[in-house]
């Protein structure tokens, strides 16, 4: 603690800023998208009733996780992009920074609020998704039991086991965690862009481009690192893409998890650590860009 009693880093100040940001975002009624998510799940499971149970569960999981991924990514970008411009417009930022609140605390607090919002959203969507999966699984088990009269108990048991294996696999949970980490990375990157952006729209548009380029970054990296043809200019461009943009493809594991690919714990941990490193580094860049900025 310094002589004046002011601490250079305070978790309670960051907590207050995060809580405030979270409340502000909730007041924007962003959770309405959950209604769309619920409708999508219910509509999907009703339509898929014409397919076999394996097909139905695969499509249900693909649609749910795909929707979860797109909703969290959009939420991360749009919610973060308007944080700094809104604070400048409302002049809240001057009130906060006039107090002994360091700029890095302000940024951490803002990002914390968005991450809290993302965590709540992912939790709510996961709960909805698992509830629909659970309900469909039980409905199908009940229907299977009705159709198995005359079958041996071990055959019935095997049928039920197969059905359960198609419905829920433990790999879904790490897959959802990776979706959250990807959204966190996007939020941190959006915060970084918004520190030098001229407007809210500029940030969103740049982030949409980064989103698409980020998914192609691995292709660029491989092209650059391997000995392919192509001129010097192409090589420089590809190197630029590989060095500047994040590799978002590394966080796209749910496609294969739904298809039954098991994710080893070590691999999940490495991917998760990479997500956390990305988020922290982009937050640091945001601070570098923001700390001496004239407001």
């Amino acid at each position, binding site marked *: 603690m310094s002589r004046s009693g002011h601490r250079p880093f305070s978790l309670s100040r960051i907590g207050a800023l995060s809580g405030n940001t979270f409340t502000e975002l909730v007041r924007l009624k962003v959770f309405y998208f959950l209604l769309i998510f619920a409708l999508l799940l219910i509509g999907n499971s009703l339509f898929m009733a014409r397919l076999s149970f394996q097909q139905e569960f695969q499509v249900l999981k693909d649609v749910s996780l795909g929707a979860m991924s797109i909703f969290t990514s959009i939420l991360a970008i749009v919610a973060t992009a308007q944080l700094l411009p809104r604070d400048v417009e409302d002049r809240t930022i001057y009130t906060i920074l006039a107090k002994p609140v360091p700029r890095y605390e302000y940024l951490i607090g803002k990002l914390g609020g968005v991450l809290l919002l993302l965590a709540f959203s992912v939790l709510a969507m996961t709960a909805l998704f698992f509830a629909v999966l659970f309900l469909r699984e039980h409905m199908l088990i009940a229907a299977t039991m009705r159709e198995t009269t005359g079958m041996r108990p071990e055959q019935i048991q095997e049928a039920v086991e197969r059905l359960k294996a198609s419905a829920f696999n433990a790999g879904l949970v790490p897959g959802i965690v990776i979706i959250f980490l990807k959204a966190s990375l996007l939020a941190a990157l959006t915060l970084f862009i918004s520190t030098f952006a001229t407007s809210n729209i500029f940030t969103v548009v740049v982030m949409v481009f980064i989103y*698409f380029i980020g998914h192609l970054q691995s292709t660029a990296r491989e092209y650059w690192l391997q000995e392919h043809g192509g001129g010097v200019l192409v090589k420089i461009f590809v190197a630029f893409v590989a060095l500047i943009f994040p590799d978002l493809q590394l966080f796209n594991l749910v496609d294969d998890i739904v298809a039954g690919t098991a994710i080893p714990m070590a691999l999940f941990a490495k991917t998760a650590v990479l997500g956390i490193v990305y988020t922290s580094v982009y937050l640091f860049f945001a601070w570098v860009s923001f700390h001496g900025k004239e407001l």
Partner: protein
Amino acid sequence: MIRSALVLFFLALFGVLRLPIESRLSEQHRSAYFHQAQLELGLREQVGQLGFLAALSGFRSLVADVAFIQAHVAWERTEWGRVFLLFREATTLQPRSVMFWDMAAWHMAWNASVAAMNDSSQPNEYLRRKAQKEYFALGRDFLERGIKNNPDRPELYESLGRLYKDKLGDHAAAARCYERAAALPGAPEYDKRFAAYELSFAPGHEQEAYTALRQLYDLGEHERLPTLLSRLKYLEAALNIPLHERISPSEK
């Protein structure tokens, strides 16, 4: 200006530091069967610009599901050419989905082949048979490519075994498929039995089949199922196994 240059420098430095780590992690993902889809220009023509963009942006499995549902609708309308193209699209986008490969092969080798054989618009039987064989080959091709993409899953070996057995009449090849399925983790117990049954139908493999069936028989009561007993008895007679080595005649 200095701040912008500093940020750009840090960004590039971070890129240099993370590049080898990402390359390694990407390799590890691939060896764990992630990111195996080959999104090439050929696919762009199949799925359209929007679909291709969606596939590139992390919605590969969703685009694959759309193709799969379209294939399902095409099957209901018995549009076999469309079924084939849409399944090719779905399996290219989602090569780790065993179900897509399996369904594609089933539609080709079972449904489309029967439809081709019963095609009233084709009076020439030779041509109908030729079309049927072509569909068998398409089904086999789907399963073989599916196995290449999913060598760790027993289901497609089982399906290929079934195709060899029911459609191509090659029992030795079917036995090899069931054997390979049985060797994989998570394979059902019956794969070993099926391998032995198929071998017992393959001419020239009688001794091998007898040994396999006898080994299963010796495992205990739970393996002594009616098919196993009847095939074993048939082989005992065919191979002139001495009476004292044969299984009890009372076993049915």
